């Protein structure tokens, strides 16, 4: 019993170290003058400044796309989740399965598909909307499922019937009862969408044009061709953006999950 527990703890700590150590290394490398020589060479913000100069636009682009992606997934996903929750059945399962395809089909393949069909519409191809479409494809299922699971937990039908007997028509019910009560799910979904969109690489790598490098594309770029310190500094910036989002996301999904129990 004791030994078993110690072993479990060891595995847990080892796994945590495996995940944590390189992130610490990368944070350190990002502020070290010369990583090859180690911390002794001194600390500096120079690399961060370099990254800012080279990649600031990609950071803003990513933020912009993430927000746009959030808006689109809200507009498409929330009503859809409601409709799916309202009419459970084989057909709804099929629709869900279909919109979840982007989780199963590798991003590269999806991007290739989009390029094949829409690559020749230049105005579209060269605009951020093209990348946005990819991100929405990939994040939409998360929004839908997040909202759906909360809706499934709140006995939506009865709440709506309650509102109906009080004189509320379908549209009023949607805004007075459905949306407010789905908020925890919407919030959890929103954070997931933003986080995933900021980190999306597989699709974006194929969809982007040189003018439209998103943050992870820039990261890949810097890993391939910049010195370690710059790559690390860029990774550091990425962490600074993504970690608070991740923490918020975990908090929000824990809350949504508590609600749906």
């Amino acid at each position: 019993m004791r030994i078993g527990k110690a072993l479990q703890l060891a595995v847990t700590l080892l796994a945590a170290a495996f995940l944590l150590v390189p992130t610490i290394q990368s944070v350190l490398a990002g502020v070290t003058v010369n990583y090859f020589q180690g911390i002794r060479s001194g600390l500096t913000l120079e690399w961060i400044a370099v990254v800012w100069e080279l990649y600031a636009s990609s950071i803003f682009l990513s933020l912009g796309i993430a927000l746009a992606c959030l808006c689109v997934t809200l507009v498409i996903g929330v009503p859809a989740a409601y409709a799916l929750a309202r009419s459970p059945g084989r057909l709804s399962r099929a629709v869900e399965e279909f919109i979840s395809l982007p989780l199963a089909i590798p991003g590269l393949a999806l991007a290739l598909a989009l390029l094949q069909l829409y690559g020749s519409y230049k105005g579209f191809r060269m605009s951020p909307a093209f990348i946005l479409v990819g991100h929405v494809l990939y994040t939409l299922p998360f929004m839908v499922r997040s909202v759906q699971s909360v809706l499934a937990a709140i006995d939506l039908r009865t709440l709506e019937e309650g509102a109906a007997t009080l004189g509320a028509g379908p549209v009023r019910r949607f805004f007075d009862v459905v949306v407010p009560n789905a908020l925890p799910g919407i919030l959890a979904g929103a954070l997931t969408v933003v986080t995933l969109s900021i980190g999306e690489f597989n699709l974006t790598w194929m969809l982007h044009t040189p003018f439209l490098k998103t943050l992870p594309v820039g990261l890949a770029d810097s890993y391939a061709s910049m010195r370690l310190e710059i790559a690390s500094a860029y990774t550091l910036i990425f962490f600074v953006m993504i970690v608070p989002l991740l923490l918020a996301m975990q908090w929000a999904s824990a809350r949504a999950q508590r609600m749906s129990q």
Partner: protein
Amino acid sequence: MTLTLRNIAKTYPGGTRALLPTDLDIAEGEIVSLLGPSGCGKTTLLRIIAGLETADAGAEIRFKDDDITHQPVERRKVGMVFQSYALFPNMSVRGNIGYGLKMQGLPRAQIDARVDEVIALCRLEPYAGRAITALSGGQRQRVALARAFAPRPRLLLLDEPLSALDAALRGQLRDELAALLRQFGITAIFVTHDQDEAMAIADRVAVMSQGRVAQIGTPEALYRAPQTAFVARFVGNSMPLGGRIEGSQLHLPGGTLALTAPSDGKAAFVRAEDVRLAEHGPLTARVTAVTFLGTHYRIALSGATEDTLFCLHQGQSAPKPGETVRLAIAPQSILILSPEKAAA
């Protein structure tokens, strides 16, 4: 009649015949309870009245002179209290109570005044500003009632509003609810599968069984003169005696009982409280179990009838399991019902 139901039937898509064609009339200010075992169609009937479910073709629902058969829910002006209450968790107590009034498009000031009034009536003042999640079960139940009351519905429908509560609270709220409904003279239909609850609240009880109304009447009428074996069993906890009736005599394994009148071809029932221990009673039985229940002992007896017969015995002591006792049942306490009805 305020509410007139004609030919209401319901077949669910799967083919379940939840409700066979049913007629029902309810007078202004009357409280009618739908009582029946699980699955007998109570909720279905209530939901059809509310407009939450559509009845099979041929149905007619009239409210005074309006035919509301095809009106959508939100225009029927019926209030409904759900088993789960269905309170809006995103609104405060006030918000919930005022929602129906808001939907009617009343001005803010008028809504506030009416909400205050209803809150006072339901003794909800201390909770008015609270979130729904910060209320206990009993408080929620009162809010649900207040919300349904507030828009002054023509008819109030309640679907097992107490069944989510624990026994103690249930008894208390049942009495409060009955008092409130009477105080406002509200016309109401109250669904329950608890016999005590139906009797405590309703002017008339409609006992339902397998999609039909088996009998409708005042609590006393149902208890004293059940018309079917089902009603006798469900409302009065009557036990079938079995045996064989010859003229005015009922022959049982443990002896022969006298009946008030010749009843050949009928079936006999009795209630546990009408079975008495009597030193010279006509029935012989063996005690199989004795349970002390505070006010009385419940004694399980075998040998008197084909099944186990129960006897509620008041007194300071009771026979022990294994003893043989003699029993008496007064002829007028034996219910005689048609066996074909007994099959229901």
